């Protein structure tokens, strides 16, 4: 009998050992699968970042002319800038000043650039080659020259060393983003222009300089080399102000009400289900809603950051509400009971105890929601924010575009070999903005975190 018990014991142990080996195999397989998933994910992210950085970083530097420009009085035939005389009315002065400005606009500033290039090349350029010469410097620079002169008329008769952006095609040529062995017919620049560009680069007249235009200029279609992100950046900034100003207070307060005060009944269940559903609605649908309500019915302006902000607010609200509710729910009920037991009202309980403890989670959720809104493109296309806007918006009601939309517009630009890099640079700017928002979220969570 006792042998049989011993045998049974042995048998039981062997059975367990056998099953143990199987269990270990399963655990190892699961661990390897998890590791594989993480490695795959990390690799893909690394590839994405490396490819964007490799393409985008060179675009932060741009081919730039460093030339002596002579403000030739024979070209700039302009009377002195008017000063307001004593006894002259403001109106009369404005009239005189705007006439002067018009005449300044009629000056052929391009001639100054042509002369400077001739000086740098050390040769006379025949009139028939003028076209090739003018392909070197981007067309926006003549207006920059005018603005500089209007600002400071004492430049007349002086020679100043100025930075001027090379045209987009010259930038492409010098950076080697086009095959130099292509036949003339398939090149973007004429043979003469290419020769000059190489010569000027050798002389050090054309250098690779940090591209401030990328940050200070708006989008441009006539002077591609000076197309920048300033307008899109301001548009995004205005939208974020609207989104943060509306969705965070609205979302957090509705979440507090639903979680802490609202009775649990059919109606609140329905509201909860609908909020969860709204979070899953494709963003482009919010764009349609915005187009029909804000623009079609309320007659708000097209392409305005205010409308974009309102649409993105609708899109972000469910995210913030869900994050806030989850955060409130994670606060132990004992804290609420403690406060209620001392005689705090429900509002006091929430605002003195629950909310401060839930704050890190609420902030994290809100910032992630806002970051998501910052990168959203689709709904903005439907409310006209993909328009070409060459002004920096001054108010949320001005026409504007947004960073992700600018990326979308640039990646569709026909001058591929210039705008591919420019697009990647814009993506880097957007990613940088998002990463700093996420870093802020992490910092805030660490700062307000309380342990209990």
């Amino acid at each position, binding site marked *: 009998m006792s042998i049989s018990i011993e045998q049974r014991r042995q048998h039981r142990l062997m059975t367990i050992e056998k099953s143990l080996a199987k269990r270990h195999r399963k655990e190892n397989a699961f661990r390897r699968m998890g590791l594989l998933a993480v490695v795959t994910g990390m690799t893909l992210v690394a590839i994405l970042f490396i490819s964007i950085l490799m393409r985008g970083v060179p675009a932060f530097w741009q081919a730039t002319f460093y030339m002596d420009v002579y403000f030739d009085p024979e070209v700039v035939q302009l009377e002195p800038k008017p000063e307001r005389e004593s006894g002259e009315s403001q109106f009369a002065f404005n009239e005189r000043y705007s006439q002067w400005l018009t005449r300044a606009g009629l000056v052929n500033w391009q001639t100054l650039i042509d002369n400077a290039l001739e000086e740098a090349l050390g040769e006379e350029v025949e009139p028939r080659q003028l076209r090739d010469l003018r392909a070197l410097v981007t067309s926006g620079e003549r207006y920059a020259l005018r603005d500089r002169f209007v600002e400071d008329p004492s430049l007349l008769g002086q020679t100043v060393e100025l930075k001027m952006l090379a045209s987009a095609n010259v930038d492409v040529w010098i950076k080697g983003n086009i095959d130099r062995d292509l036949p003339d017919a398939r090149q973007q620049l004429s043979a003469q222009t290419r020769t000059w560009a190489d010569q000027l680069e050798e002389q050090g007249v054309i250098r690779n300089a940090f591209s401030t235009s990328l940050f200070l200029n708006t989008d441009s279609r006539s002077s591609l080399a000076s197309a920048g992100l300033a307008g899109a950046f301001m548009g995004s900034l205005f939208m974020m102000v609207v989104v943060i100003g509306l969705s965070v207070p609205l979302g957090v307060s509705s979440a507090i009400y639903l979680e802490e005060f609202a009775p649990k009944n059919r109606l609140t269940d329905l509201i909860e289900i609908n909020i969860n559903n709204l979070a899953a609605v494709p963003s482009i649908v919010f764009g349609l809603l915005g187009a029909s309500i804000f623009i079609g019915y309320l007659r708000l302006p097209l392409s305005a950051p205010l409308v974009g902000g309102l649409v993105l607010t609708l899109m972000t609200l469910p995210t913030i509400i869900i994050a806030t509710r989850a955060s409130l729910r994670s606060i132990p009920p*004992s*804290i609420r009971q*403690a*406060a*209620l037991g001392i*005689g*705090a009202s429900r509002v006091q309980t929430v605002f003195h105890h629950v909310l401060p*403890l839930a704050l890190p989670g609420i902030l994290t959720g809100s910032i992630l929601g806002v970051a998501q809104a910052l990168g959203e493109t689709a709904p903005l296309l439907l409310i006209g924010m993909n328009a070409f806007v060459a002004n920096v918006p001054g108010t949320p009601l001005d026409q504007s575009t947004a960073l992700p939309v600018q990326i979308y517009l640039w990646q569709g630009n026909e001058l591929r070999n210039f705008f591919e890099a420019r697009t990647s640079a814009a993506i880097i700017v957007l990613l940088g903005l998002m990463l700093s928002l996420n870093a802020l979220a992490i910092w805030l969570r660490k700062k307000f975190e309380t*342990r*209990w």
Partner: protein
Amino acid sequence: MNIPAQPMATSSVSVGSGESRVSKAKDKVKMNAQDVKVFYGDAQAINGIDLDIYENEVLAFIGPSGCGKSTFLRCLNRMNDTIDICRVEGKITLDQNDIYAPDRDVVLLRAQVGIVFQKPNPFPKSIYENIAYGPRLHGLARRKAELDDIVESSLRRAGLWEEVKDRLDQPGTGLSGGQQQRLCIARTVAVSPDIILMDEPCSALDPIATAKVEQLIDELSESYTIVMVTHNMQQAARVADRTAFFHMGDLVEVDTTDQIFTNPQDQRTHDYITGRFG
């Protein structure tokens, strides 16, 4: 030593304080419950309870798990209001005033009837702020010095002052379990309630911390009415003047602690205290 040990499950520790407690005269009714019924949704948890609570007594509720003793305790300061599906019928008065009257301010009620919970639940704030929160909330202290006084005297009453006086700015959650529970008692005392409800205040504590809290209850009964729920019959025997036995939502029997433990009138009480069930 007039309590025979025989009906007690384990009696040796319980007898000491019994005699002294009985000698206190308590006859002024502080709270009164009439036909109190509690429902959670459709399920009835309390089936009509009538009970008087006398001023400055220590009243213990005992009974098996799920018998409704905690539920009834939480009716006494309307903590059940915070549970959505909970519904209370009947009448409970405090100093002859109905506490469930529509115009009754629940905040004032809870300032008069404080509560200490089963698990210590200090706020994740400093020791000082834990105590000062209630008085500040109710405007009991106008100046900082007054508040300091309240904090010190409350901590002294809870027997915690000597242990924490040098670290009032440290988090209350950093104290040991027993200290946290006494901090919660001090926090309740700081509001100067008339009645302190305690919902199994020692069930999460070790024996030494339990002994300290029991001693504290004994001292507090000089100036407060204390109603406590306990799972531990010896504890009821040690600290309570009167004991109420709950079973299946009914108040089976309430009498002096001696009487309940030596001469229970109801068979269920007898079975419970002799360990037949529960």
